[in-house]
């Protein structure tokens, strides 16, 4: 088990493995996202209150989900890197940040576009929206902090601490609609009881989430390969690989 783990965490092995894995994420991701887009726009029935505007759900909810998922991955990788001093984990954490930031931006932007016709406003400073905006600043702060160090090891450690402390924001985002009175609707899928959304509307949502999840797998594979190359530039194995 440990032998396997060490092999997995060794940069040359991870570099090759990620390269082989990427297309297995990428192509299914493209297929699922296209399928869910078609399903969500054509096949799913219009909402009885929101009409066709509810179709924004299929891009808004998956990007919001990915913004939080990516942050948790980033924080866990940072913690692993910090505790066991695994360089590859720090590299994975660094690779997450731009992907997560883009999903967070997307969640905020599509939410804003949805908010205008439904709530009558692009933006309100309520708990859900504000905590999601804070998430965007956490990602940007993380990247800025990394960039401010010349020494990659010090950048790893400092940014890891920020990533770990910031993870407290994730449950706040999730439960914000429960803890505070907000304009944002409550959870309709991610709760223990039966989802309060019709199956015909739910299926494309799950397909889109699966597609986004695979897309993340592809993007992290590519970005992590780049990170490994930058960090291992003096290592012997690179001479053969490049």
């Amino acid at each position, binding site marked *: 088990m440990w032998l396997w783990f060490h092999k997995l965490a060794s940069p040359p092995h991870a570099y090759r493995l990620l390269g082989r894995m990427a297309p297995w994420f990428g192509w299914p991701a493209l297929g699922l996202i296209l399928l869910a887009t078609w399903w969500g726009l054509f096949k799913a029935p219009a909402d009885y209150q929101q009409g066709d*505007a509810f179709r*924004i759900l299929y891009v808004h909810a998956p990007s919001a989900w990915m913004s939080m998922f990516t942050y948790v991955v980033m924080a866990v990788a940072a913690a692993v890197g910090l505790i066991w001093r695994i360089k590859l984990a720090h590299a994975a954490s660094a690779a997450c940040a731009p992907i997560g930031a883009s999903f967070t931006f997307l969640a905020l932007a*599509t939410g804003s576009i949805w908010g205008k016709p439904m709530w009558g406003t692009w933006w309100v400073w309520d708990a859900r929206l504000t905590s999601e905006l804070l998430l965007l600043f956490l990602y940007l702060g993380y990247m800025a902090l990394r960039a401010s160090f010349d020494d990659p090891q010090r950048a790893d450690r400092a940014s890891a601490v920020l990533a770990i402390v910031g993870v407290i924001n994730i449950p706040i985002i999730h439960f914000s609609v429960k803890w505070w009175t907000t304009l944002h609707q409550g959870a309709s899928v991610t709760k223990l009881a039966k989802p309060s959304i019709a199956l015909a509307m739910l299926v494309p949502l799950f397909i889109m989430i699966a597609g986004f999840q695979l897309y993340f797998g592809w993007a992290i594979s590519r970005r992590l390969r780049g990170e490994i190359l930058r960090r291992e530039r003096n290592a012997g194995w690179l001479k053969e690989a*490049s």
Partner: protein
Amino acid sequence: MDLQNFLAMGGYAGYVWPAYGLTALVLVWNWWAARRSEAEALLNARRRNEYAREARS
């Protein structure tokens, strides 16, 4: 359902289409940025190797 009706999105065309368009834009940006970041790192690694080889010879 005809195309005109579909494009109108029940009167919400001005919201639904920009939301989907923006999503496509961000996904394509991510795809492009991830590829570019990897290609750049690979190019740098190759250059360093060439320098090292030249320095040795």
